[in-house]
């Protein structure tokens, strides 16, 4: 009992606890867990419908552009790498974090733009939201992901502005990073399931 009490006194003597994971990062991690399950729900629903169909893709529907999207995928993965480089630079010299952060933003914006071009092409080939279950799932899942990229981009712009003004805390960058890596990291899974 005596040792129990004295070890406890030591803990109490410390200052108020400093969390292992900053609040913003932890909140974002929990949110990302929900998001993972959301995409998991869509992808498993897609897989169920696809495996229950006799013919796939449904008759009269175009094949999805696997090769072009592979290029877009590379762009998105590079933007993730660019944000990783941002973190490395941020820890050494904050001023040098700007360039990789801008690169991450441009790469992600290029991804959204190229995916948009792909959408227009597919719409022209007769794949619409209501043309088949492939079309419904394609536009819903890819559209949801594009929306996530756009939100991540807005977050990064906000982070960039803070960096410019010298207000950016390390934990704020980390919060943005969590969401960004999620958006980048979930894409290969979507690509593998939907485009395959």
């Amino acid at each position, binding site marked *: 009992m005596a040792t129990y009490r004295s070890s406890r006194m030591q803990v109490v003597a410390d200052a108020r606890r400093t969390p292992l994971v900053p*609040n913003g990062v932890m909140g974002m991690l929990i949110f990302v867990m*929900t998001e993972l*399950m959301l995409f998991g729900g869509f992808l498993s*629903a897609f897989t169920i419908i696809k495996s*229950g169909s006799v013919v796939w893709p*449904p008759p009269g529907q175009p094949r999805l552009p696997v090769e072009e999207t592979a290029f877009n995928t590379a762009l998105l993965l590079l933007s993730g790498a660019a944000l990783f480089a941002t973190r490395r630079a941020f820890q050494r010299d904050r001023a040098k974090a700007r360039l990789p952060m801008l690169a991450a933003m441009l790469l992600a914006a290029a991804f959204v733009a190229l995916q948009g071009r792909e959408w227009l092409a597919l719409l022209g080939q007769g794949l619409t939201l209501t043309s088949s279950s492939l079309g419904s799932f394609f536009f819903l899942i890819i559209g*949801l992901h594009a929306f996530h990229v756009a939100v991540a981009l807005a977050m990064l712009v906000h982070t960039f502005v803070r960096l410019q003004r010298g207000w950016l805390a390390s934990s704020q960058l980390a919060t943005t990073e969590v969401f960004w890596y999620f958006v980048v990291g979930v894409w290969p899974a979507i690509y593998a399931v939907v485009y395959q």
Partner: protein
Amino acid sequence: MATAPVTHHDAHGHGHHEESWFVHYFWSTDHKMIAKQYMFTGMAMALIGGFFAYCFRMQIAFPGIDVPGFGVVSPNEYNHLITNHGAIMIFWVAMPVLIAAFGNYLIPLMIGCDDMVFPKLNRLSYQIFLLSIVVLIASFFVPGGGFAGAWTMYPPLSAKPEYGLTPLGASLFVTAVALEFVAFLMGGINFVTTAMNSRAPGMRMYDIPMVVWMIVIASILFMASVGPLVAGAVMLLFDQNLGTAFFNPDKGGDPVLWQHLFWFFGHPEVYVVLLPTVGIVAEIITVFARKKLFAYRTVLYTAFGTGVLSFMVWAHHQFIAGIDPRMANIFTITTLLISIPIAEMMFVYIATLYGGAITLTTPMLWALSFIATFLVGGVTGIFLGASGADIYLHDTYFVLAHFHYTFFPIAIIGTFAGLSYWFPKMFGRMMNETLGKIHFWGTIIPFNCIFIPLFVLGAAGEHRRIFDYTNFSELARPELRQLDQFATISLLVMLGFQVLFLFNLFYSLFWGPKAEKNPWKANTLEWTADSPPPHGNWPELPRVYRGPYEYSVPGRDQDYWPQNAQN
């Protein structure tokens, strides 16, 4: 997302500035005010849900009656009432009161910090919750009326207006449910982050009061399970409004897909609302038995185990939906397995009570009745979990009585237990014990009188989705009809006794005797703050030296040992 300050240097700054009435009651970021908002909103919704139950039970017992306060119930109105009774009681009563109200109130006070880590997110959470209620209530008044395809929203009733007959009501209903999830997502992020990052110095993982752990686990379960349902809700909204065919087999969709997405969320949801009540009961029985919680760590690990297992049982809702019988076997096994941890928790509570110095206060009566009634709910679940028995019992009143024997203890008994226990802290006044006990017996006896007959009716084969039994000669036998009438009259008695509760609540709120800081002589930190705690909770934030359940420790003058007392 801004990072909230981790240090609490500003604790003294609270309470010195005057807030306007509107800001204080409707725009507050104080966790206690948000908790009260959730509590009162949830209780108001319970009145609506209870009124709906009254209307359709009157129709079932006395077909074609002009229900006082409502009028004659038409078949589609009947479906609408049942649908919204279920949805309101689960999404707008159990969730806001048990998770949001108690979570918001108790987490910061029990772990010894001044507020949630994201107070503005917390405020936004309540505002979105309120918006979801506005959307839900608006859906009752649109052309075609409110959604009437059961709270589980199975397509095609929910997806096709020509079947469901509620073109706009169905879309608004799905939207309201989705908004409500967004609100609880924000709340859940707050609860978990706060409990992990803002605990008082000295409070280790195993010193966290059980109710906080339970709300945290429930929040994690909710956030891990809600994704697929949100996905399904979006697909359903697309089917309703944009002409897609996710759930329409004519065009390559699959209606059973919805059931999987719904119940993947829906079954963990049972544990999302159960666990907070299990935690509330743990706090109450330890205080009023003056005993340490038996096997704290076992309860904690069991709760985590239950959470994991709850993700593997969902298809037991679909035994007759055309799923593969081999899959049904697997889900029978997992379903029967999950009764083990829950039974274990009940045994732990009985072991806690064993040999205790029990005081039968109102909160203690509620807590004990939770154990008793929930056991009935759990035991009857075993029959339904076995796929063979379920084929006969599915969609009968047996199922209905079973889940009311689980949800009533969870949502209603849990709320009354928690509210009567923490009322002195929340409002600084004591509730009337005599009225509380009359209300307790006036609720618990009629409750059993409502649902025991329904077990009998269900076993006799009464189907739960029939509007008027007079057209079914084999179900309209007088002995069965009399049981239905007995259940309905018991419901009227039970609802009548709730007036007593409301009187006690509002009378005590304004004129009850003043409560001291620690009227129950409890150990946890919230009882060291003033009653009610001011903005910022403590002038100086507490430190913790021991676990929350040190009651009747040998060799001490007092039979309790507050967590923050140095010796």
